[in-house]
């Protein structure tokens, strides 16, 4: 019988614990339980058979930790094969009549993924895929990905399964006591991502006993449109008389789980501490319950690695600032791979209150696919907002969507057949909410009716790919009123008509005012009008006070702002920004004849350093500001740091203030690199994931005018050497925090001597000493950031 068919009419019973039972039969601490498939097949088979006899429909193979990180490929193959044999034998052995299936069990790999750990997303996919391929080729009925406590690793496992078979896929996550995954995702976010990926059933296992798990289950039942799984522990472990027991009896366990089945759980079993007796009780308690119908929730929802954003409650704002169009400084950042600049654009938009960030990094002279993948990954390290992947490059879109942690928005598809044929399969595979522009091969229709017609065509095509209506958000395109005075009205009509069709609608309103003065006034008014027509979301610049005013005022006035709290918060920022903008308190030159800018830098006053630089730029040439104000101030702080009268935090605060000053100067000089010294390549070596020290050095070097190429952390010797060779950099800085990664530093130096003999190597990091540096053949050991700067100055001048 087909499992998918069976689930639609029946409660499905899974098995219970395995690990605790094996310990009871002699598994020693530290011994790998998967090896028992081969060494103790009778015991494993008997446990599976006991579960079937207790009423389980599905048993999971004893392969929780069977992956290529723990076993070589031969042993892995043997383990998975034996595990499946054991489960199949149990079916033959069991005498109970219910339908029975074998699930290939997949547990976490136990490694953190990038950007926090060292395993890349694609490496994780491949680790899972190896186990999946072995199991699927040998023959199982379904795959069960379980006990995942990180959303990103969960996605990697799901992609690995989906790319290697069409079997039913169940996924269950382990939640912490704050009802989130260990890395922060809420149940709602997991539902969004996993349904997007096309998983057959989703839910919760391990974590806690059924009572505590019930709260997370409630969330799943509220949001999920697929069957929900519950597989809790037998309560919490305690030691009684030297023996481990769990504090919930089989009877209580059965009763608690049955309560959740009544609430709508469709698939249930037990995890740690549960035994065949627990499963028997669970089946007894829930057998008579009529399965609750699973209804489609019709939610338009995207997610990040922490939370979901849905279009149900209030209009949603998408920040548009991560985009090079018309921004020379942003283009320069892209060309120099200055990721920090791009990240800071993301962070500041989040601070201004947007809900989603649009990410567009298209520039003809760079590899957009590489850059988009990198920026999406890095942004997800620092900003927990869902992202909107914005590109016309299908390859770039595919790569970004693949490594995205959550369910993304896509910008965009349109009514052209070619566009739909290339975008929909991607959205189907990874899950996404897609912005659909109402234009096609014949352009943008002038009337609302024409645009709605295209919308219908897009919905038709989407449904052929199995993409639901709620995963499409239409953009009926704001047109320039100065070119056609009726254009504004047509777009508003289209908004209303699309909303009446039950679709969500987005707009980028700013086009409407093109060619007219005081555009913010027109834009914000038009935005309010569109909101009144039912606009679901808008892409905008959150730095535009007028647009944000319109948004907060609208949501307050139509009752979408509980207690006016968002409006009140916003109104209070308005009061302070207007005073700050007009009146930054200027420091007076106090000590020892410092200029005001010098004083601001020495004291680490960012805002003042920025304003003072701006006013200086009106009369003083940029280079002179650098040479007579900024550099002397930095030197002064640097010297007192070396004399130990100033400490690292002040040194950094000064460096940040001078960076603000440099930014102002850069805007003025627009890409002119007159203040740049030599190239300095910097990296944390392979195997090491610490980068705070390296980033501090980088900041100071940038302050002193070096063209710093930051390769990040965990960087392979080859990448470092390739970069040095490509740029012919005269100096490279290597950082390592732990003794275990010093060999990789040594290897990097060896390779540098071979392929880039001109390059000087300076090393630093907690573990290093002069002695170590000498031993591995470095040119210089730098004890702190200033020492690196001083050494760089020598090389630059020499």
């Amino acid at each position, binding site marked *: 019988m087909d499992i998918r068919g069976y689930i639609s009419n029946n409660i499905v019973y899974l098995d219970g614990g395995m690990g605790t039972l094996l310990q009871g039969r002699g598994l020693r601490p530290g011994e790998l339980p998967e090896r028992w498939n081969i060494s103790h097949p009778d015991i494993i088979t008997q446990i599976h058979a006991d579960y079937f006899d207790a009423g389980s429909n599905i048993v999971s193979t004893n392969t929780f930790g069977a992956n290529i990180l723990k076993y070589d490929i031969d042993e892995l193959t043997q383990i998975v094969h034996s595990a499946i044999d054991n489960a199949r034998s149990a079916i033959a052995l069991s005498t109970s009549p219910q339908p029975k299936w074998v699930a290939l069990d997949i547990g976490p790999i136990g490694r*953190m993924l990038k950007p926090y*750990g060292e395993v890349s997303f694609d490496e994780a996919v491949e680790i899972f895929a190896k186990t999946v391929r072995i199991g699927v080729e040998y023959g199982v009925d379904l795959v069960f990905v379980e006990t995942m406590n990180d959303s990103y690793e969960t996605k990697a496992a799901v992609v690995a399964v989906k790319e290697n078979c069409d079997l039913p896929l169940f996924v269950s996550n382990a939640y912490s006591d704050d009802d989130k995954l*260990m890395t922060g995702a809420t149940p709602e976010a997991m539902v969004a991502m996993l349904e997007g990926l096309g998983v057959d059933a989703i839910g919760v296992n391990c974590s806690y006993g059924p009572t505590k798990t019930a709260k997370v289950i409630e969330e799943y039942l509220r949001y999920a449109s697929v069957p929900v799984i519950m597989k809790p522990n037998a309560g919490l472990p305690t030691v009684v008389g030297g023996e481990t027991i769990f504090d919930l009896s089989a009877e209580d366990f059965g009763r608690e789980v049955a309560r959740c089945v009544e609430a709508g759980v469709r698939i249930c079993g037990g995890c740690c501490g549960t035994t065949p007796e627990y499963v028997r009780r669970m089946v007894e308690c829930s057998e008579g319950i009529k399965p609750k119908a699973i209804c489609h929730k019709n939610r338009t929802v995207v997610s990040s690695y922490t939370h979901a954003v849905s279009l149900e409650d209030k209009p949603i704002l998408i920040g548009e600032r991560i985009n090079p169009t018309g921004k020379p400084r942003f283009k320069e950042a892209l060309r120099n791979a200055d990721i920090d600049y791009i990240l800071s654009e993301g962070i500041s938009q989040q601070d201004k209150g947007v809900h989603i960030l649009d990410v567009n990094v298209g520039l003809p002279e760079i590899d957009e696919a590489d850059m988009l993948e990198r920026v999406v990954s890095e942004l997800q*390290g*620092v900003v927990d907002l869902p992202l909107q992947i914005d590109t016309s490059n299908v390859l770039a879109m595919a790569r970004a969507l693949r490594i995205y942690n959550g369910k993304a928005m896509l910008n965009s598809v349109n009514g052209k057949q070619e566009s739909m044929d290339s975008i929909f399969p991607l959205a189907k595979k990874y899950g996404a909410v897609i912005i659909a522009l109402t234009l096609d091969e014949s352009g943008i229709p002038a009337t609302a009716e024409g645009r709605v017609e295209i919308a219908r065509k897009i919905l038709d095509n989407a449904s052929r790919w199995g993409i639901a209506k709620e995963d499409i958000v239409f953009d009926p395109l704001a047109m320039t009123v100065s070119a056609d005075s009726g254009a504004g009205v047509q777009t508003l009509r289209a908004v209303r008509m699309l909303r009446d069709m039950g679709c969500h609608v987005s707009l980028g309103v700013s086009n409407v005012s093109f060619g007219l003065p005081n555009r913010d006034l027109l834009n914000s008014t038009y935005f309010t009008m569109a909101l009144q027509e039912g606009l679901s979301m808008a892409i905008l610049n959150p730095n535009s006070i007028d647009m944000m005013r319109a948004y907060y005022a609208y949501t307050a006035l139509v009752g979408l702002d509980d207690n006016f709290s968002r409006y009140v918060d916003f109104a209070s920022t308005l009061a302070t920004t207007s005073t700050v903008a007009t009146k930054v308190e200027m420091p007076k030159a106090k000590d020892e004849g410092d200029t005001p800018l010098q004083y601001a830098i020495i004291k680490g006053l960012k805002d003042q350093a920025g304003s003072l630089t701006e006013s200086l730029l009106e009369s003083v040439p940029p280079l002179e500001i650098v040479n007579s104000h900024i550099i002397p101030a930095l030197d002064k702080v640097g010297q007192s740091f070396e004399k130990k009268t100033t400490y*690292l935090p002040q040194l950094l*605060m000064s460096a940040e203030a001078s960076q603000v000053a440099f930014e102002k100067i850069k805007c003025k000089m627009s890409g002119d690199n007159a203040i740049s010294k030599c190239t300095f390549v910097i990296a944390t070596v392979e195997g090491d994931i610490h980068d705070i020290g390296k980033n501090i050095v980088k900041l100071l070097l940038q302050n002193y005018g070096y063209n710093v190429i930051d390769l990040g952390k965990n960087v392979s010797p080859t990448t470092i050497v390739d970069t040095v060779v490509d740029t012919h950099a005269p100096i490279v800085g290597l950082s390592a925090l732990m003794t275990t990664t010093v060999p990789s530093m040594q290897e990097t130096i060896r390779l540098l001597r071979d392929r880039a003999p001109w390059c000087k190597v300076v090393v630093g990091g907690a573990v290093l000493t002069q002695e170590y540096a000498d031993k591995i053949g470095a040119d210089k050991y730098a004890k702190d950031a200033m020492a690196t700067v001083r050494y760089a100055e020598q090389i630059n001048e020499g």
Partner: protein
Amino acid sequence: MISPVFVKTYDAPSYDEREILRYIGETSPNSETVELVRSCIAEVEAHLSYKVCYAVYDAQVTPDGVDMTFAKTKSTSLAKTLADSDRVILVVASVGIGIDRLVKKYLSISASRALVMQAIGAERVESLLDAFCIEMREKYRGLGQDITTRYSPGYGDLPLQLQREIFDALDCPKRIGVSLSDSMMMTPTKSVSAIIGISRSICSDVSLDKCKNCNKDCQYRR
């Protein structure tokens, strides 16, 4: 004896501002730094979780080192610490990934804040482990026993490689979301693994302050 692995969540231990300043390397703090530290503390709390997982194992000092059931080691320094113990508590504590995210965020916009955040993280996880040790000491003293100072891989001659066995024994990724890399580093980075001896009788002279039991001259000495 094989105990189960216990998981415990703690409330936030109180912040030790002096300790945070010590991690930053600020021996005579000025008002700007203190203000910075306070504003970082105010921001950080919502991003932390305080979790430990631990288990108890029989342990025996042998002529070649120590046998702790889950692993054997030749470390003489650990053997010295465990001289009066017949069991060990193996513990991994972590304050979660939130602090790593904050540090990473501030590395792109404010290095001084990143520096302070990371010092706070170090202080947090040590304070968490302090809270755990105090609790254990009370528990075992109540039974007429005691605990030793905590000892971590990398201290003395206890090799970092022991991390692998610790992680296999406690299954930390599953229990508290801490994973171990090939180079023996833990993520989230603000995590600490330790071995604590359970000694047969109360020994009043053992301090839980690690610095008092170490005679190295190091920049972080309290």
